[in-house]
């Protein structure tokens, strides 16, 4: 019966409209959190910049000690990978982008004959790797939305321990960098050993460092001596990097979620429009049919009377 179709469509439209209310609300919430997350990235910048400067100056002062803690190993055999994703979904490709990149990275290390230890941040990660039969050493949850420095400290203590103990020769981190409100990129970052500050320009590596950067002009005093200082600095620098990645990850998550939810809201609007049109046509058809039936019936009645 034609009226039945109309009822079904009406129900469907109502359901799409209530979904739209949810996606719209999520879009607005995500948008408001982006601002806060961005402000936290900005507040973290002086620390990050300062850490980098101190590290550069100290590394330049004691190249031999620096070589142990800085630089990229040629063919690592024990590798640690930290993947940073979100605690929640509904954020477009935010989680899957990092997870896929991590999977690729792990596969590559294994192909090269390395042992890989995997850590993850974010509730969305363990399930993904479990399904693919990749073992995760430890997963952290509940810190992706609003990361605190203590969270970064906890993660850092776990991921730096095997490196400091000499059981690991490379620690990498896969996370989403918040480049601007419009651009976020999944990146693999070498965390330990610390990448040389100017590795990109100097092929000869650490020996060219003393000339690197304006921060190394002249004589610098060290308390304690650079070697000790570097050993203290390396884990702190890793902490700082992880915290920055958590902050940028959370900003990227909200941006991705806002975008995904805006698209979902648009789709809901579009769907409501189409469904309304179909429903109106169905109703019109039903009315036309009904009129035809009445006219037909009246005609038949008159003919039977006249006969």
């Amino acid at each position, binding site marked *: 019966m034609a009226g039945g179709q109309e009822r079904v469509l009406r129900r469907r439209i109502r359901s799409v409209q209530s979904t739209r209310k949810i996606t719209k609300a999520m879009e607005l919430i995500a948008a408001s959190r982006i601002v806060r997350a961005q402000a*936290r990235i900005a*507040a*973290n910048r*002086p*620390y*990050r910049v*300062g*850490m980098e*400067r*101190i590290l550069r*100056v*100290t590394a330049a*002062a004691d190249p031999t000690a620096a070589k142990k803690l800085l630089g990229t190993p040629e063919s690592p055999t024990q590798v640690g990978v930290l993947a940073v994703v979100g605690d929640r979904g509904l954020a477009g490709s935010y989680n899957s982008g990092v997870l896929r990149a991590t999977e690729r990275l792990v596969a590559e290390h294994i192909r090269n004959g390395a042992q890989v230890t995997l850590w993850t941040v974010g509730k969305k990660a363990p399930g993904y790797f479990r399904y693919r039969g990749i073992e995760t050493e430890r997963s952290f949850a509940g810190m992706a939305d609003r990361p*605190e*420095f203590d969270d*970064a*400290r906890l993660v850092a203590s776990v991921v730096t321990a095997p490196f400091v103990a000499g059981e690991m020769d490379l620690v990498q981190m896969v996370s989403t960098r918040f480049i601007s409100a419009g651009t976020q990129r999944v990146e693999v970052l070498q965390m330990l050993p610390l990448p040389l500050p100017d590795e990109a320009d100097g092929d000869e590596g650490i020996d060219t460092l003393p000339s690197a950067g*304006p*921060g*190394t*002009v*002249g*004589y*610098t*005093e*060290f*308390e*304690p001596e*650079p070697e000790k*200082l570097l050993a*203290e*600095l390396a884990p*702190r620098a890793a*902490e*700082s990097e992880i*915290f920055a990645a958590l902050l940028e990850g959370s900003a990227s998550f909200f941006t991705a979620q806002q975008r995904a939810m805006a698209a979902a809201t648009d789709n809901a609007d579009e769907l409501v429009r189409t469904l309304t049109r179909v429903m109106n046509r169905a109703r019109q058809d039903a009315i036309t049919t009904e009129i035809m039936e009445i006219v037909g019936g009246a005609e038949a009645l008159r003919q039977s009377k006249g006969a």
Partner: protein
Amino acid sequence: MPDGVFGVEVVTPEQSLVAGGASSVVLATSEGALTVLDGHTPLVGDVVPGQVKVDLADGTLLRLAVHGGFVQVDTSPGAAEGLAEGDGPLPGLSTRVTLLVGIAELSEEIDVPRAERAREVAAQRVAELKSGRSGGASDLPEGAEPPDVALREAEEALARAELRLLVAGSGE
């Protein structure tokens, strides 16, 4: 800018606590107490937990509880550039002192009742752990941290609370 003034900043990963011109900074590294005045040689060092005093250029004395970090005195050209927060840009400064600290509070921002409570809790915990260790620590719940780690953490918490109270000016 008057003579003897240099740029100083105290930053934590969460925020910038101090940024501006100062006439002296007093802190402690692992090798002893250190006062930084204008014209100090370039220096990189660690900062051990303790009180840090910053004499701002306008005469105010800031006191901070600093729970460990690093310090850099940078005299390279342009070092103090970009250090402009607070009371506007600071032209003509040749030295920049940067303190990078994980946790730090300004004296007036310290929550004294909270620190007092924290000290009590931590002191009790330290006492408990110490007595537990001497009298056989077999009553520890399964899966708890090893007693020495727990003890170190409790002692650190105690030290932090005491430092806060000292800097807030109400410590005994």
